[in-house]
């Protein structure tokens, strides 16, 4: 029920936006999909990967506050460099994928539940 983030990246056709190498040992055990920040704070749990299209600086703040180690931006959404800088500072991994939130969540779910 736990996977390494680096094993997820090729499965979701993802790219790492933050500094590579900092997250080689990062593991995740669940995921959460939401574009409402208050909902993420209320319902996401520690060590989940968060799939969203919200690319504002506030997303990094919410991830930091809710102990979310990884944000996956769906639909080809790419945040600005200030957001990426902030994520590096906060030690949060940012991934980007052209796939939809649904597709990413499906592939993550399959990986987590096929072991």
């Amino acid at each position, binding site marked *: 029920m736990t996977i390494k983030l680096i094993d997820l990246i090729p499965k979701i056709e993802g790219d790492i936006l933050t500094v590579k190498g900092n997250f080689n040992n990062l593991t995740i055990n669940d995921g959460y999909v939401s574009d*409402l920040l*208050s909902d993420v704070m*209320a319902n996401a749990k520690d060590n989940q990967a968060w799939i969203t299209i919200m690319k*504002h*600086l506030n997303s990094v703040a919410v991830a930091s*506050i809710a102990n979310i180690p990884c944000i996956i931006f769906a639909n080809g959404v790419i945040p600005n460099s200030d957001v990426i800088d902030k994520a590096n500072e906060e030690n949060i991994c940012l991934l980007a994928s052209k796939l939809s939130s649904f597709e990413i969540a499906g592939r993550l779910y399959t990986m987590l539940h096929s072991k």
Partner: protein
Amino acid sequence: MKVCEAAVSNSLHEHWAVPDEVKDGREFILNPPEPELVLDYEIESRNYAKAGKASSDIKLTLKQLGVDPSVLRKIAIACYEAEINVVAHSKGGKMHANIYDDRVLVILEDEGPGIEDVEKAMLPGFSTADELAREMGFGAGLGLPNIKKNCDAMHISSRLGYKTRLNFFVLFDKLINGNTNEQ
């Protein structure tokens, strides 16, 4: 009739959320004792780029004082939601964190424009957020309910056209000097 409505909507509204087991909740909020440490912040209206700085700083300070990570998470969420409320709805305000050995009391006071109906504002899903707040991923009407959920006691008071004041505290699992919290 109009005059009567105005009088009603202009009255002071308040909401208390203090569970029975938190016996000193109201008294502590109404007459807070002298804190061990006070952190003060200014919060700017509509500045979403800066929003969250005060909350991160409070979280970091309490982390350094040895507060348990699960308690820290509750504090950070409540602080962040409260800070965002001031950014999104008010003309700006102040945020203070009063740190004691058994809890943190957070006080926010803004410069208005006040809340017409505090009880309504407490309802999950009720929101008066503008387009900008919604674009930023807020405005779902979950802010105050999230604060209530993550703290041990809260009080909010407001009057339309005047300031809004929000106080809440979160108890630590154990005293930050290392003893067990008897609360």
